[in-house]
């Protein structure tokens, strides 16, 4: 059983990828020859595919919270409102 990062959470943030360097390279390679906008679309598709695989809303919420960690709201963003 793999130890989880925080007591009481379900999201596994301990090492779980067999060959991390291989995975990382594939992730970056997936975006080769794409514009920034196309990359954003591919990332969004990847998130949706993985989110559906996970399914559990508690884990998904914890992942979203972990993703937002350390990212401050952008005050210059005039499009929000």
């Amino acid at each position, binding site marked *: 059983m793999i130890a989880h990062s925080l007591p009481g959470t379900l999201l596994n943030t301990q090492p779980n990828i067999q060959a991390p360097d291989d995975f990382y390279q594939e992730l970056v390679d997936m975006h080769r020859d794409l514009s920034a*906008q196309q990359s*954003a*679309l591919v*990332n*969004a*598709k990847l*998130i*949706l*595919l993985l989110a*559906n695989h996970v399914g559990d809303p508690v884990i998904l919420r914890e992942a979203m919270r972990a993703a937002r960690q350390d990212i401050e709201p952008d005050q210059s963003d005039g*499009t*929000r409102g």
Partner: protein
Amino acid sequence: MKTYLNPIYSCAAPIELSGPPHHWPVVVAGAGPVGLCAAIDLAQRGIDVIVLDEDNTVSVGSRAICWAKRTLEIFDRLGCGDCIVGKGVEWNVGRVFFRDEQIYQFDLLPEAGHRRPAFINLQQYWVEQILVERCLGLPQTELRWHNKVVGVTPRSDHVAIRVVAPEGEYTILADWLIVADGARSPVRGMLGLESEGQAFRDRFLIADVLMHSDFPTERWFWFDPPFHRHQSALLHRQADNVWRVDFQLGPDADPEEEKKPEKIMPRLRAMLGDNTEFEIEWASVYTFQCRRMRSFRHGRALFVGDAAHLVSPFGARGANSGIQDVDNLIWKLELVMAGQAPESLLDSYATERAFAADENIRHSTRSTDFITPKSEASRAFRDATLLLAKHHAFARRLVNSGRLSLPTTLEASVLSTQDRAGEAFASVVPLGGAAVDAPVEGPRGVWLLSYLDGGFTLLVFDNSVPADAVEVLANDANSCNVVQVGGKSVAGASRVEDSERLVAARYDGKPGTCYLFRPDQHLCARWRSFDLQSLRGAIARATGQAYVEAMEAA
């Protein structure tokens, strides 16, 4: 318009102009579909009602077109279901397209055994005309056209309403005022009240087009179609070969420019093809808002429909929810007026329908955010969902072109009695939910809902309620009809045959199972065996007695 000529209504001079202010039990401000339904429901309960409207005709142009199953069932109770359904076109299937491919299809009523379909489409003016005709057949209603409300003074035991009629100005006194005067609600403004929420920036072109076409009677929704790139579009059939077309125009479109026929025609031509003959019946450019009042009750003023809450059009939740407001309100008002329920019962109208409004606003806001993404990230997820939906079933569930109106389940209503410990029901109707139809055979027709007709009704499986209890319930102040499904006939109860075994299937019915429905056909209590005291307690609770007890205890 070619297919519809607006009727011009007239009325006699108000009697107030030839005498002192007259006192009426109920006045309805606004003769739209919601106000007219309120008047019909009141009149059917024997209550005199005046309807005031500043215009002298029905809706000019179509506006609302989709009437949901639950609304049709309410129309049935109001005596105009057949007329409206007969004039409308039925549909159950929706298709969603992304660019030039279909990515998703849904059937809103995939099972048989219901009197009404998931939806009919019918132009709002037709619905209003049929409701007006129904009102004219009810002597308790008086429709006053060209009678404009210009002032409202709330008092503790009545409301004084100042009205301008063609023949002069007068004051009318009402025990209760039902405010059904629409999104801008002048009466709400006169009372200094607000509806709070969010306005959306995107503009939409809405056009009703007359054409003879073999498109099926389905809801077709396009994201980014070849004929209208980077925006969405909707095509929907109505009666008389009129088709509703809706084009998203974006936030920067000029509404005056977009309304011009020379601007609209090329858009329609691109959508409908060069070989289709069509004419524009009516067109409008709109933006929309999602907002609601904090409370739908202010003393003796009761707000219903768009005056109380507003949603975007995606999901057909505007007029449909307004008619469900009326369905919820009128039986309570009747009991309060008759002294059979405390006035606080009307507060349950405000809380139950505010809960429903929040549900509708939540759905409609989510649809709007999907259809008109507000940020780059939101657009990326939207487009990602649509691309995935072509290949993967999971993504089709995320596509949101409007979650179409379903009746609100009044979860946690104070009027509901919780299930007895240890009793479980595998029923399609949850506690607080609206009754679900099923075919039956019996003295009042072949549909179950016809037997839940405006009062409290106990639906019981088998002959499980003794005749003396049936009699007691019929003679109680807040009486209750007993409808038994199968079993030996019990004196005083209506008996239906579960001809296709669908009542038992849908309600998890076993001998002894009892369902108590409120006059608006919502389920407020259920048991696995009959007990007179429990039933009377549940009716007391559903008529607001529990409110009073809780207040007194506090």
